[in-house]
């Protein structure tokens, strides 16, 4: 097999193209990230790019060329998020505590802005200077016209401009006004734009197309003393450990910032009745649910495999194909179909049964429902792997025991079954770990419900840890507490780790490493 060197050319082009793209992205994104203060991300992109350049431009690191690109993504989007989850668990990141301290201070100050004077709304035009930069032309109540931008305010000579009868600015020498269409395009940029005023602490902000508002903050941050002062009443707000400025009367300024609060989230989970009671129930169900599912699916699957795997069953192949249909159906859609079939008043399942079973509203029946649906969805997999294991059984052992005089019954119970179970144990543990955080199977069918009333509506009777986490973090109106959610998520991580290490030890996968 001769391969000419010229055939390396397309590969070289792809390499240059991809590396070029990567470097262009790095050159653009790193300065942006640094400017926004996201140093960790900037450093990661910069270092990754340098490593990839080095590896691909040298001919030394052959194996690294194949592994490092995936590894860089793995670290960024699998390992780092896992560690970061642990970090968020030690913060109070939640609605109202989403930003860092500096952004929170900026936000507090700009929320406290109040108009100054009776005539605080002033005529203004957005205009372009001859150099092409956009500025604000503001007519102050002192009768002068000022040229302002984010940095400074400058008086314009009185004879260089004119106003109409209503006092609106009509024309200014050397400036072209922006048309309404142009203003509409740029107006959003001025939502957080301030022009320094004539006095200290006074600013202008764009109110609409042709007006500014003269404003001043009522709160001021004192960086030396690290407190916020109300300029009108003189009240002092000091930072507390939970990431908020608090006054002497206990009033908190909003928003707060994300603060490291140590083990507070875990303490809440363990110590606070409102979280502990549901969490204990959720935790128990998180262990019981996958156990039931794995046991039932495994025994049903094994039983079916043994039943059908008889030499005289002829339509074996057809049976097998029909039996794995649930496994081939997209899970989200089949679970939603089951939800309709289990509908209490109209669903087909209740029509077929003599009584109306409250599948989704009774705590116990809802548990039966989620297990039933997962048994339906998971048995084909167990059936497939059990069939594989039975067919892979060494015939020598079976024959040897038959020669030794064992009855077919004995061969089955004492030889075949134990061998199959041992061979499948790692897959069973893996399946347990999978169902341990099988979000869709719970959330799409019952939404975790019916609601546990003593949980303040956050937890439901069929919730497992991951769906409880989702409720804590993302269900609007129920708190949106990412810190607490991460603490629960982290507990979930730890349990999955323990289960996985067990599976890992028992499996033969270690052998593949050599």
């Amino acid at each position, binding site marked *: 097999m001769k*391969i000419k060197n010229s055939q390396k050319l397309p590969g070289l082009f792809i390499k240059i193209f991809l590396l070029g793209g990567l470097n262009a992205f790095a050159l653009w994104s790193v300065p942006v*990230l640094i*400017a926004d203060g*996201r140093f960790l*991300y900037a450093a990661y992109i910069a270092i990754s790019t340098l490593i990839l350049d080095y590896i691909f431009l040298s001919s030394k690191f*052959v*194996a690294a*060329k*194949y*592994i490092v*690109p*995936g590894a860089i*993504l*793995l670290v960024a*989007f699998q390992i*780092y*998020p*896992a560690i*970061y*989850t642990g970090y968020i668990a030690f913060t109070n990141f939640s609605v109202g505590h989403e930003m860092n301290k500096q952004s929170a201070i900026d936000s507090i100050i700009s929320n406290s802005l109040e108009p100054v004077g009776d005539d605080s709304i002033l005529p203004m035009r957005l205009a372009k200077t001859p150099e092409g930069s956009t500025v604000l032309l503001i007519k102050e109540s002192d009768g002068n016209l000022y040229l302002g931008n984010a940095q400074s305010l400058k008086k314009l000579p009185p004879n260089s401009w004119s106003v109409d009868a209503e006092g609106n600015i009509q024309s200014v020498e050397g400036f072209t006004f922006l048309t309404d269409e142009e203003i509409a395009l740029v107006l959003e940029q001025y939502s957080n734009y301030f022009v320094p005023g004539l006095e200290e602490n006074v600013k202008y902000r764009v109110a609409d197309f042709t007006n500014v508002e003269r404003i001043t903050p009522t709160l001021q941050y004192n960086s030396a003393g690290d407190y916020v002062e109300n300029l009108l009443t003189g009240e002092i707000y000091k930072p507390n450990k939970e990431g908020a400025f608090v006054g002497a009367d206990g009033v908190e300024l909003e928003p707060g910032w994300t603060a490291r609060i140590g083990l507070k989230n875990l303490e809440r989970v363990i110590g606070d009745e409102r979280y502990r009671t549901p969490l204990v129930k959720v935790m128990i169900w998180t262990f019981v649910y996958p156990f039931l599912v794995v046991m039932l699916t495994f025994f*049903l699957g094994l039983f*079916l495999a043994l*039943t*059908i795997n008889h030499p*005289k*069953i*002829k*339509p074996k192949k057809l049976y097998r*194909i029909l039996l*794995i*249909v*649930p496994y*081939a*159906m*997209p899970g989200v*859609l*089949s679970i*939603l*179909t089951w939800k309709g079939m289990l*509908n209490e*008043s*109209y669903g*087909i399942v209740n029509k077929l049964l003599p009584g109306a079973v409250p599948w989704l509203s009774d705590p116990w029946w809802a548990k039966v429902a989620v297990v039933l649906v997962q048994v339906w969805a998971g048995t*084909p*997999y167990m059936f497939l*792997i059990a069939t*594989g294991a039975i067919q892979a059984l060494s015939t020598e052992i079976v024959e040897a025991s038959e020669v030794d005089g064992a009855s077919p019954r004995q061969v089955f119970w004492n030889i075949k079954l134990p061998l199959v179970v041992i*061979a499948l144990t*790692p897959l069973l543990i893996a399946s347990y770990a999978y169902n341990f*955080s099988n979000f*869709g199977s719970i959330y799409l069918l019952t939404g975790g419900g019916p609601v546990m009333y003593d949980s303040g509506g956050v937890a439901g009777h069929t919730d497992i840890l991951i769906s409880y*986490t989702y409720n804590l973090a*993302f269900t609007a109106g129920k708190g949106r507490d990412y810190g607490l959610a*991460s603490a629960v998520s982290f507990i979930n*991580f730890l349990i*999955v*780790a323990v289960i996985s290490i067990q599976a890992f030890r028992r499996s033969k*996968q270690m*052998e*593949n490493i050599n």
Partner: protein
Amino acid sequence: MSTELIVRQKKMTFQKWVRVLAWRHFIALLAIAFALFPLIWMASASFDELGKINTQSLIPQYPGLSNYRALWENPDQPYWLWMRNSVMIASINAVLQLAIGATAAYALSRFRYRGRKTTLMTILIVQMFPQLLAVTAFYVILADLRESIPFMDFGSPIALLIIFAGGALGINAWMLKGFFDSIPSEIDESAKIDGASHGQIYVRIILPLALPMLAVVALLSFIGTMNEFLLTAVILGGNQEAITLAVGMRQFIETDFQENWGAFAAGALIATIPVMVLFIWLQKFVVSGLTAGSLKG
């Protein structure tokens, strides 16, 4: 089928047939009925012009295609937009997963370098952690990055794809490595003697030989993405233009389960059939892929 069996197997008496085989057929048929029922029910609902849960019967009273027409006409349910989003995201993701997973698997299978064992151990451990457990972290990371990098924002399919790509070096690489190991290394060694580079051996020898396995990994990853709900909902959920079939169908059916039942069933059936045919067609490879490395003992 069963009478035929008796004729052919003359030695077997009727009593013996009942005792040994009849119950097996009975159980198999019972299990098949249970397995197929939701699919049949879904199909029946999709052809029922009334389109409601409460009036549905197994054989539709007013059979017709109005539910299928609704998939094109109902603006509240832009089914084909969701389908397009899903297929786009799932296809691109399958390609990315395959590209990253297979290249890494090639190196792990063929090169002996320092740190190889560590890499394998890391991959083996990391692949056990589903990415969705870190869903809050992904939310925070995107909330952090969205202002600096426009495509790393909520509602951006690119952000979702990049996050999924982070998991590519897990299970896929592991599964493919097992398969690459089974390709005799004499083949690539003789190619090396003929002057082939490592890149040429990979592209022109290993990849073609591993084609069935690559197809399985691509298929499993495609189905997995079509079915992924949690991360997709959190990352794309706010952007109605970008949501996938899984998120869209859930949203659609949640708003009015009773009224939208028929249209839901029609959409679900269209999405189910192709995946199912592909899966059953490739089932032999799928099974060997799923159990690779575990059934050896």
